């Protein structure tokens, strides 16, 4: 063939691959408000940065007449590119080709970029939109899933893995996202479940829609499986870019630094009045986070799940910091099963990737009740304790108000080797609230409200302050709230060279 013919052949083949499942299926995808696999990549990556692998890969199945239909690419677009100039690997399932179903070769394409990403130390971002296993291929498809799973496990804690669920994700397919670091869903067009509504109805007689069973609302508010949900593909992918900007490329590289337009010395006088005069009045911890962050920018993780704890990323002096904060607006900021799981997951991610941790504490204790005990709050609460205890990244803690009981220990206390433990003058570090303590200590005087009131006052005077803890060195310094940004900025600056080793082990046995 002549050179021109060869070039033409290449262009024809490329055009064929880029056409995916054809105009009709692309239109159907658009009609659902969903973009195609390639359109999504356009939005995820820097313009013109995408380099594709395996565009011409086709499946090798022959059963059920499959040999006659071998579209190039086999239902997934894979490759690499950049997000704001930084390397990432991406796979994007193409619902217009065999419903995005996973075949042996489809899986191989994903595995190839997973291997590349792990080797080169760059994140993997999966854009999931797949009907599930390619049933025609049988066990070969299942094997494909498992190959992907194994690579998810191998990459865990080495490179960030992000899953964006942009269509169906059911059955075995859910376990790959489940093992990645972040799951982002699209409202109205994505769902995840192990067994679908039909099976649920047959087996349990429960009647439930796909949306109720595994939609974005279910997983961001109820199950906590997903971290974030956005209104459409465009927004989800733009926000995924924002997330990538906050993360290191791998555990071998430090978290990214970005030019910033906010003074580390910024004083916020309004923080001096953040804590209400009434100790039982709530306040919004988000305000503190926003006022500490560079440019008031907070990227919340799991904002709609276990809202009694806040987790997410901010930047201090342009450097990523993970924030964990009790939220007094919800359940008084207490710890419970869900908030402990949410916090622990986040702390472990940050520690794995060298992201310093800022902990803001206003915690009255653990949520009491049978639901919590039967649900195993002992083990779940221990996850957060364990996560803080094993984290060797820089840890800075600020107690704004309550730090009661075991929850005080859990929330990155000095005893869990936090590096800086600051307290505001409004801090109360005690075994429990004054009234509760007095009711135990002076049980015999309970009939005499006057005596009890006096005892309560005494207890408050003695313990409802940060100074008892400060005298023992559990608090490094009591700081003025208005200066908190400067204090934590300096603290993190001093910890940039922190190195802390832990004894060798194969891996720990975190309570699961």
């Amino acid at each position, binding site marked *: 063939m002549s050179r021109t013919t060869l070039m033409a052949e290449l262009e024809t083949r490329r055009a064929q691959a880029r056409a995916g499942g054809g105009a009709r299926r692309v239109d159907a995808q658009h009609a659902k408000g969903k973009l195609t696999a390639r359109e999504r990549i356009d939005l995820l990556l820097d313009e013109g940065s995408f380099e594709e692998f395996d565009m011409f890969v086709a499946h090798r199945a022959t059963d059920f007449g499959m040999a006659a239909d071998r579209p190039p690419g086999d239902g997934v677009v894979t490759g690499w590119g950049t997000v704001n100039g930084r390397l990432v690997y991406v796979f994007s399932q193409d619902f217009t080709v065999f419903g995005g179903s996973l075949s042996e070769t489809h899986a191989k394409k994903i595995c190839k970029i997973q291997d590349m990403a792990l080797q080169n130390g760059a994140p993997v971002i999966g854009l999931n939109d797949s009907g599930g296993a390619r049933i025609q291929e049988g066990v070969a498809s299942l094997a494909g899933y498992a190959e992907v799973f194994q690579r998810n496990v191998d990459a865990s804690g080495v490179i960030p893995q992000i899953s964006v669920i942009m269509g169906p994700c059911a059955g075995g397919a859910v376990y790959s996202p489940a093992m990645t670091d972040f799951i982002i869903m699209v*409202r109205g067009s994505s769902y995840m479940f192990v067994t679908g509504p039909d099976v649920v109805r047959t087996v349990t007689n429960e009647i439930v829609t796909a949306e109720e069973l595994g939609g974005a609302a279910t997983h961001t508010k109820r199950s906590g499986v997903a971290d974030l949900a956005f*209104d459409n593909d465009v927004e989800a992918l733009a926000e995924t870019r924002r997330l990538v900007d906050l993360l290191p490329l791998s555990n071998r590289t430090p978290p990214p630094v970005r030019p910033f337009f906010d003074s580390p010395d910024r004083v916020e006088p*309004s923080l001096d009045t953040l804590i209400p005069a009434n100790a039982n009045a709530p306040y919004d911890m988000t305000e503190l986070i926003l006022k500490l962050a560079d440019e008031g920018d907070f990227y919340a993780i799991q904002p709609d799940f276990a809202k009694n704890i806040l987790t997410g990323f901010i930047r201090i002096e342009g450097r990523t910091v993970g924030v964990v904060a009790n939220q007094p607006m919800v359940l008084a900021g207490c710890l419970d099963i869900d908030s402990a799981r949410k916090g622990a997951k986040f702390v472990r991610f940050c520690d794995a990737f060298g992201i310093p941790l800022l902990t803001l504490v206003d915690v009255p204790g653990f*949520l009491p009740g049978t639901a919590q005990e039967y649900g195993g709050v002992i083990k779940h609460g221990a996850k957060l304790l364990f996560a803080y205890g094993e984290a060797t990244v820089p840890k800075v803690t600020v107690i704004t108000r309550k730090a009661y009981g075991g929850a005080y220990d859990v929330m990155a206390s000095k005893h869990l080797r936090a590096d800086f433990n600051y307290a505001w003058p409004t801090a109360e570090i005690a075994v429990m609230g004054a009234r509760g303590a007095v009711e135990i200590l002076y049980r015999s005087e309970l009939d005499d409200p006057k005596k009890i009131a006096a005892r309560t006052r005494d207890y408050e005077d003695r313990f409802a302050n940060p100074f008892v803890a400060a005298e023992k060195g559990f608090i490094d310094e009591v700081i003025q709230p208005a200066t908190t940004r400067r204090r934590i900025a300096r603290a993190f600056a001093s910890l940039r060279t922190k190195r802390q080793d832990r004894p060798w082990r194969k891996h720990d046995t975190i309570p699961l």
Partner: protein
Amino acid sequence: MFDKILIANRGEIACRIIRTARRMGIATVAVHSDADQGALHVAMADEAVHIGPSPAAQSYIVIDRIMAAIRQTGAQAVHPGYGFLSENAAFADAVAAEGVAFIGPPADAIRAMGDKITSKTIAADAGVSTVPGHMGIVADADEALRIAGGIGYPVMLKASAGGGGKGMRIAWTEADVREGFEASRNEARASFGDDRMFIEKFVTQPRHIEIQLLCDAHGNGVYLGERECSIQRRNQKVIEEAPSPFLDEATRRAMGEQSLMLARAVGYASAGTVEFIVDQARNFYFLEMNTRLQVEHPVTELITGVDIVEEMIRVANGEPLRLAQDDVRLTGWAVESRVYAEDPYREFLPSIGRLTRYRPPAEVATDSLAVRNDTGVFEGGEISMFYDPMIAKLCTWAPDRAGAIAAMRDALGAFEIEGIGHNLPFLAAVMDHPTFTGGTMTTAFIAEEFPDGFRGVDLPEADLHRIAAAAAAMYRVAEIRRTRLSGRMDNHERKVGTDWVVTIGAMRAEVRLAADRRGTDVTIGGTVLRVESDWTPGDTLATLVVDGQRMVLKVGKITHGFRIRVRGADLTVHVRTPRQAELAALMKVHEAADTSKLLLCPMPGLVVRIDVAPGDAVQEGQALAVVEAMKMENILRAERKGRVASVKAAAGDSLAVDDVILEFE
């Protein structure tokens, strides 16, 4: 001169009085309720005395409490501010009996002007123009009909003790009088415990114009020009200015001189204000006299250079006035905007809570421009439910009216308030309204121009293009910063493009950016707009020059763009690459989820109280119930307007998550 004065008030006016006292070398005493423990006036004063619980009825208007504070601190004079005890003759008497100076008029003058019928009689006798009407109490509907026929329709039926629009009705026909008289009288009895009624001519298309007086105890008096206060919402002044764009010199002099005649008739000494309504033929009629410092006094201060509070203090000290009428010069133009904690998008519902951000525009005082902001709050402070929802009085001054209004536009644009609802967009909308800028407003302005409430301003396309150009230039700056992240592949960096698509609501514009060191040339809609700004990412306020015109934007981040507040409009501005825009156009618009008609308990907790009953109409944002969880009281609010159908829980109930508290219709 006094060594120490007590200010029997709170909020901005207490702060404003303290400022003048301090300049005069006088020590100040603040009083405060529980809720005002940490208030600005308490922090500013040299001394502070706690005078009781938060409700004003148990603190700021309890004469004994104030008298105790005076005795305790040895204050030699008391300034009552406005509202509270400022027009309470008994208080003035009590202060005098204590041998302490009252920084206000004699008690008799307060008494004489305090009753609408008495004051009108005195005014008429003093030769002040009054609204044609019946001077006496009207016995019944028949008498009312007879009098109305004599005056000529339309007429106003008014409760003698009235205020705030209660017990007040306009009658255009005999039938209206017959119906309205009893209704108004019942209302008056219920509201004020006083059912005396009178009738007067109803002036159509009236303007509210008032004269500021300053009188001493030696028989001297001057008028400091007028203030136009026609921009009112339900009889609440919103925007005032001085002078009035409507008065001529002859009318001004006639109003001023008649006001002084009234002052002399009641032996007035101190600052006072005579309010008039003025019809379209510049006939003016006495409305009432306010025997105190007015909220809107700063606009008069700005055009006369007189510190009215200082003069009040000097008069109370027995000094003669330091200026004669010939010394009074009205220079330039001043406008005041009252910034209220009221959400204009929610039918001006008062909004309370924490001011998470409060950044007023910078105060300026030059020969060509003045910006003055009288306030009693601070960032991190609380707007409580107990008092007036006023946050600040923002005033601007310039040599002419257009300049003062332009300065107000800028000042409103640069005002940042977050954490609570506020009326800044509404104030900005008025500043751009042709009826206001043309100076032809009447007291019906707001009711006529915003009959369905305020929904934000629709800006013309030219303005939207300028905003789009500004947003594109800013977005480019933010995007370039994003490419400066560490860890990028050398030599393969992202290049931020020059072509963008900006959408603002239905407006879509393709723009091309050419940036140089000092600014950006933005090609939009076939023209080139030059954008210059020192905005950097994270700034919540952007000051730009777009095509030679200054522009101030309040900016918030959203995905692919900004949320921008500008000149009474709240805009969602998307800035996207052509490819992003093309794909965004394929997205479905999500319809707002059908939120159920139930108020569910958001957390396990104990019901402290239910604030509504079946049949109650509730506004969006209104408190419905309080649930205590983990010893925290959480206020549950209505997410939208509605009517309560049934209440399913009661105080003391223990609820689980998603238990029904009440149902809406």
